[in-house]
């Protein structure tokens, strides 16, 4: 497999994972280059969220390894895993803000939990992070008082509060209007470069994601289908990748869900199943 670059922050090898008997990943190899924005794209239900949870050590793979900065994530004690996680930020699909805390307290949360900074310092750090995402003015609001796009920006401020090495974004653009999308895209790129982060961007918004990433993976059917620089992925020879990128209704992924029953027989079969 061609490597995206010599300096790899997250190395996934031979990853296998499934729920019950249903396999989600069947031997996935991935490298997340340090300091870059890496896109992981794939249709809904391919296991993109699952992959992020496996990288974060929330779930355990049935086989294979995930290394974060040279450390095997799934061979750590709980305490050591928690130490690792302080260096990973994760943005859940809906922000996952704590609904009983204000925007300010949400961003302060990891600082209060993990540091012994004096109150004045916490205040400064929180306001700086909120300023970075343009929401210093919303510090006193509660999560239910702000829009979905703002929630994601607050979650982003919270994710970078402890100055992690990596931030993982789970579908940050889904359900956002074009302006918000643009704001989030620029923010992800800017923060990555300004803070020297490594960003992992999981999404099926193909054009948006490819336009801000340095490297891209396309995942489907439990495997990596293609990977490379955005331009290379756009020009991929894989039929599936082409179908996915251009949103064609039929191709390797059929429009019809698989069934063994013949259509005509099914109609004539009436209520009998």
């Amino acid at each position, binding site marked *: 497999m061609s490597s995206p670059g010599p300096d790899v922050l997250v190395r996934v090898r031979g990853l296998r994972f499934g729920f019950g008997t249903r396999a989600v990943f069947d031997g996935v190899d991935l490298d997340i280059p340090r300091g870059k924005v890496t896109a992981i794209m794939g249709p809904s239900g391919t296991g993109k969220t699952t992959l992020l*949870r496996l990288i*974060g050590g*929330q779930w355990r793979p049935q086989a294979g390894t995930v290394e974060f900065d040279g450390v095997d994530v799934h061979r750590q004690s709980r305490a050591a895993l*928690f*130490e690792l*996680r*302080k260096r*990973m*930020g*994760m943005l*859940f*699909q*809906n922000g*996952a*803000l*704590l*609904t009983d805390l204000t925007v300010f307290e949400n961003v302060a*949360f*990891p600082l209060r*939990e*993990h540091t012994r900074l004096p109150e004045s310092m916490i205040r400064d750090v929180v306001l700086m992070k909120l300023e970075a995402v343009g929401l210093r003015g919303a510090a006193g609001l509660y999560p239910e008082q702000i829009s979905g796009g703002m929630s994601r920006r607050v*979650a982003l401020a*919270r994710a970078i509060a*402890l100055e992690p090495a990596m931030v993982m974004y789970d579908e940050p653009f889904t359900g956002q209007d074009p302006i918000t999308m643009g704001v989030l895209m620029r923010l992800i790129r800017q923060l990555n470069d300004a803070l020297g982060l490594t960003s992992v961007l999981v999404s099926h918004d193909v054009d948006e994601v490819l336009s801000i990433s340095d490297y891209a993976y396309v995942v489907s059917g439990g495997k990596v289908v293609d990977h490379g620089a955005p331009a290379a992925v756009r020009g991929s020879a894989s039929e599936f990748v082409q179908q996915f990128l251009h949103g064609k209704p039929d191709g390797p992924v059929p429009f019809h869900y698989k069934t063994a029953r013949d259509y005509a027989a099914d109609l004539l079969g009436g209520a009998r199943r």
Partner: protein
Amino acid sequence: MKPWLLIGDFLRRLGESTLFLFTILSALPAALARPRLVVQQLYMVGVLSMVIVIISGSFIGMVLALQGYSLLVRFGAASSLGQAVAFSVVRELGPVVTALLFAGRAGSALAAEIGLMKATDQLSGMEMMAVDPVKRVVAPRFLAGFIAMPLLVAMFSVMAIGVGGGYSIGVTLLGVDDGAYWSQIHRAMHFEDIRQSLVKALWFGGAVSWIAMYQGYHAAPTSEGVSRATTSTVVVSSVVVLALDFVLTAFMFR
């Protein structure tokens, strides 16, 4: 569903909830180290339940006095009314009715809150921030429920015996001297009765909190899952409280 599947599911849940109880218990020192979180929850749980406990206590006291009087007067023992009311409240109705109210009010709210936190990835989010949700969210709530119950039972008992019972005597002019009512209570109540009440309150508080935490934390992360967790909390808690009451009473009678 087939009966053996139901039994299998029951046993699985029993095992799972027992393990979860141990997880909560092992997180208690962490919760105790941050009393502010517990006090916050104590306030929530207390405020949620206080009003209904006060109102229900008063009504139950009134009914007990009326019913007790009509029974006792037949044996010419109407002057023992205070003792009858106090006994039934302190030993039985106080802890049991309070626990049922607590399950319906605070237990269901706790289960819904935790279930929703799970459904909206707030718990996962905490885990990814290297914060243990059992320590940060579950343990303080469990502890608060455990501490709140004795206080609520005491509140219930005072309302039932004092306000409810006293009101019935004073206003409905039962043929009981209110002085006799009070001195009867004073003479008949022993430390042992209070102890039994306290023991029950702690057991019930622990049981209801445990059930609520388990139901919420293990709820399916959907709106249906949260609503099921809420209902189950009330149903299971009620049955467990009544069963536990029998076991505790049988033990304490000896």
